[in-house]
């Protein structure tokens, strides 16, 4: 194994979570004491069992709700369009065409289609769907819908993209393909990604940092470093290095689950 260079440590900070917690209805502790430093260009996975507060963490970061304790601090001012989101479901508007769906983030900022047409088509091209710009979502397969959702999240070239188990509902072949494409896309637009997943394999393949979490109460158990260099080819999936990281992550996850049981 090559000596780990850690380019991320030198990159500027984008966002920081300081002992952030969220309690619902006064007694459901969804998340407790989560601290995380996100640097520009990071690919961070939140890995953990159901109910450990992964979605809650994303909702806090996207400002859909406020933390009950702790603080979330952004480096520099936040503008709408600095954030892209992908949910587990493609979450497309069924009455709008593919291109109109991707246009949405711009449209909500008052931009006409004509003025951002190139960006929309460019985003569709990056996800390989330029031929489907006039199709309606119901005409697309599950994987294609997810691609549209990803195109919509990145069309404004946001600094940060939040993804909540985006590929969980897809078959494995499609998921692998989208994993590869996601890494390519991230390089192409140079954004930061926080990615929620249940899958150890997915988290190791994609991320440079894995935040392992446990449930009841939702909390961070440990943070793992995946120092394999990008771009990561398909062959990375079968490498010894990959196996070693998966092992490490699985052990950490077991530890997290064990504490609950």
């Amino acid at each position, binding site marked *: 194994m090559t000596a780990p260079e850690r380019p991320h440590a030198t990159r500027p900070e984008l966002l920081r979570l300081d002992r952030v917690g969220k309690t619902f209805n006064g007694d459901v502790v969804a998340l407790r004491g989560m601290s995380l430093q996100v640097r520009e260009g990071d690919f961070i996975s939140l890995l953990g069992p159901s109910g450990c507060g992964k979605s809650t963490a994303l*909702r806090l970061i*996207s*400002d*859909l709700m406020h933390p009950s304790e702790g603080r979330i601090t952004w480096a520099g001012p936040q503008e*709408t*369009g600095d*954030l892209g*989101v992908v*949910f587990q*479901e493609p*979450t497309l*508007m*069924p*009455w*709008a065409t593919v291109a109109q769906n991707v246009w*949405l*983030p711009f*449209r*909500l*900022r008052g931009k006409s289609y004509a003025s951002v047409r190139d960006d929309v088509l460019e985003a569709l091209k990056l996800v390989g769907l330029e031929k489907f710009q006039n199709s*309606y*979502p*119901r005409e697309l397969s599950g994987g294609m819908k997810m691609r549209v959702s990803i195109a919509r999240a990145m069309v404004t070239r946001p600094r940060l993209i939040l993804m909540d188990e985006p590929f969980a509902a897809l078959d494995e072949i499609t998921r692998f393909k989208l994993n590869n494409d996601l890494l390519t896309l991230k390089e192409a637009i140079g954004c930061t990604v926080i990615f929620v997943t249940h899958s150890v394999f997915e988290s190791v393949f994609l991320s440079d940092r894995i935040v392992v979490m446990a449930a009841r109460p939702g909390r961070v158990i440990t943070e793992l470093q995946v120092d394999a260099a990008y771009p990561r080819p398909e062959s990375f999936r079968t490498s010894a290095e990959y196996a070693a990281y998966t092992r490490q992550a699985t052990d950490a996850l077991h530890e997290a689950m064990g504490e609950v049981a």
Partner: protein
Amino acid sequence: MSIADSTETTMEPDADEIARQRRKRVETFGKWLLPAVVLVLMLVIWDRIVVWNEIPHYILPGPGLVFETLIKDWAMLFEALLVTVQITLMALAVAVIGGVGLAVLFTQSRLVEMSFYPYAVILQVTPIVAIAPLIFIYVDSRIAGLLLCAWLVAFFPVLSNTTLGLNSADHNLRDLFRIYGASRWQTLRFLQLPSALPYFLGGLRIAGGLSLIGAVVAEYVAGTGGLKSGLAFRILEAGYRLNIPRMFAALILIAGTGVIIFAGLSFLSHMLLRKWHESALKRDH
């Protein structure tokens, strides 16, 4: 079996395909022909009952006589039909404006909804025949009174369906709109109204039928009215004169109007939804 044979057999429609085509033929055939057969049967039975029992026409006219009357009185009946249709369509239009407007108001302000929704329900559950006499006491204009009655009956399905639709927008999409900093107006325009469209159209179809009912009932209550009389008034009038064939002819026109309104609104709904909504999806199996 040779390769050529086996490729040949795959070209033929399989059992599922044959069964599907058969079902489709029966379906299209049955949908039009069966009701037509029933209609003809009913007319023949009706006619025979009248003829064999020698029932006088002022008690039960035969279908032939009703048809003759329809032609003979066409000028008068058609004029009445136009009046009824006019009231119906105006009531429907006001029901749509009022129903959708109230629904939007309700979803914009929870306080408004809590304050007024119970009264919308009360208006809906009180039979229109019970309210109508009061309305005609207080409202001078006959047309306005008719319109008000028809509207009272018709607006509720539009209101309740549209409210349901506006609130049924996908939660993740709502979150997305919030993250992108959408204004209330943008959320309404780009998310809630399109989400509500299928629900609204369902309510509209019901409201179409109800506004016709409202118009007819209101006219019964309003009773004799000078120049502009609709079909309901013609039925009443014919009843006083024991002109039973004309009553039947007017009845046929009212029923026909209802069918046309329903079919028209169904067609509109299909055209608006056919590109994206599940209800307009054609499945072959």
